[in-house]
């Protein structure tokens, strides 16, 4: 009977597996390519598991929608149609503005502004982690969603793609403790690093005291980090902590994106360091200059 066999495991096998694990951890830490490939390969299977688990939730939602109030649905439809019309109207103006800006830039020997293409993706699940700021979307390598691609929603920056498999991708939100990005401080043109805290709050540290930033100011992506294209709203300042002794202030902000209700997001599929990059870099050089000069450049 099986109980009376010892099945005592071999020490050699244990040691080999321990060494393999430690090597794997080190390589993962460094970020080796084939470790990423392994991650993506096995990730396809686990993403499928996450998707299957999420099915009951999606089914429940669709059933609720089916039995939902008909009038309410009609109202919703009407509201969406109005919003669509409004947005389309504004887009016409946007197109003419873009033409105008491109014309002006050409006069200054600049490159035309390129609006990067976006891809609509549906959230299909949420892998568990201590902070709960990862989620999985239903677009992957087959749709050119690569690790590092920025993710936005209707209101602002959501985060970036952490890992992509053939049919899905994992997105890390900008509120994660592991996430840092470069932002422009409102109208001042100064850039600073904004990092997540794991909660709802974002923190910008080491901002020079003379910078004119107040609660309510918008923080935009600066494009300096090469990860996010310039100009997407990322967060709104909620509080400014004065630190007289140090000569610096610390900003507290909250993301503009609606992180609690992310059913659909947009993935910016063009890598940020493609043709638009040199033009952006020219602009970014002036970030270190005094704010007065910067204002002329930005506006």
């Amino acid at each position, binding site marked *: 009977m099986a109980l009376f066999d010892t099945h005592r495991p071999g020490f050699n096998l244990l040691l080999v597996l321990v060494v393999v694990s430690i090597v794997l951890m080190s390589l993962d830490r460094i970020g080796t390519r084939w470790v990423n490939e392994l991650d993506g390969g096995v990730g396809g299977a686990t993403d499928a598991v996450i998707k299957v688990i999420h099915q009951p939730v999606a089914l429940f939602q669709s059933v609720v929608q089916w039995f939902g109030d008909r009038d309410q649905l009609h109202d919703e439809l009407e509201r969406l149609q109005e919003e669509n019309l409004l947005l389309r109207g504004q887009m016409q103006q946007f197109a003419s503005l873009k033409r105008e800006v491109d014309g002006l830039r050409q006069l200054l020997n600049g490159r035309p502004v390129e609006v990067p293409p976006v891809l609509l993706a549906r959230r299909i699940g949420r892998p568990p*982690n201590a902070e709960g700021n990862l989620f999985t979307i239903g677009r992957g390598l087959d749709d050119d969603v690569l690790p590092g691609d920025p993710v936005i929603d209707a209101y602002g920056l959501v985060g970036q793609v952490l890992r992509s498999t053939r049919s899905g991708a994992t997105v890390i939100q900008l509120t994660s403790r592991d996430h840092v990005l470069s932002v422009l401080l409102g109208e001042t043109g100064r850039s600073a690093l904004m990092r997540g805290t794991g909660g709802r709050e974002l923190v910008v540290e080491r901002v020079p005291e003379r910078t004119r930033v107040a609660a309510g100011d918008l923080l935009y992506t600066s494009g300096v980090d090469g990860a996010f294209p310039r100009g997407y709203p990322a967060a709104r300042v909620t509080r400014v902590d004065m630190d007289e002794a140090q000569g610096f202030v610390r900003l507290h902000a909250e993301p503009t994106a609606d992180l609690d209700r992310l059913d659909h997001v947009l993935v910016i599929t063009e890598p940020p360091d493609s043709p638009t990059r040199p033009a952006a870099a020219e602009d970014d050089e002036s970030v270190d200059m005094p704010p007065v000069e910067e204002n002329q450049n930005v506006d």
Partner: protein
Amino acid sequence: MSTSWIAVILTSIAALGLTLIPLPQPLQVHNPQWLLLTVIFWALYRPAQAGLIYAWCAGLLLDVAVNGLLGLNALLFTLTVFLVLSLRQRLAVAPLLSQALLVSGFTLLYLMIALWVEGVATDIISMATYLSRAVSNLAAWPIIYFVMTRLTTIRMPR
């Protein structure tokens, strides 16, 4: 009597699914480690099918699923199953309550080591550089061995 591989794999995937169920944040931290418990169960009662390699693969799957440090759970699954297999003959016939207590003791060790490794891995010192000394020790051991056997009368038993 013999359980097929398919049962082992299917239950493991089901347990992984149970681990990945999205729960509200306060409940999430208290969700049991279903996959680890399943792996321990198979190691206790079907050690022929579920050995160290199976545990390593299950741990790696969990690592990938939760986007953690790749290899951390694989390492700890392997160590836990090694412990379980070493104590198997005593553990398999123990009453349910003492089994549960022992399993929770194992996972306590598991969680402590996981916390420690994560702290080390996020440190500034590169882990690979730090651990490379183990490889140097591997190379240096024969030197020490030969020098010491020359100097003393200790000989390797043959």
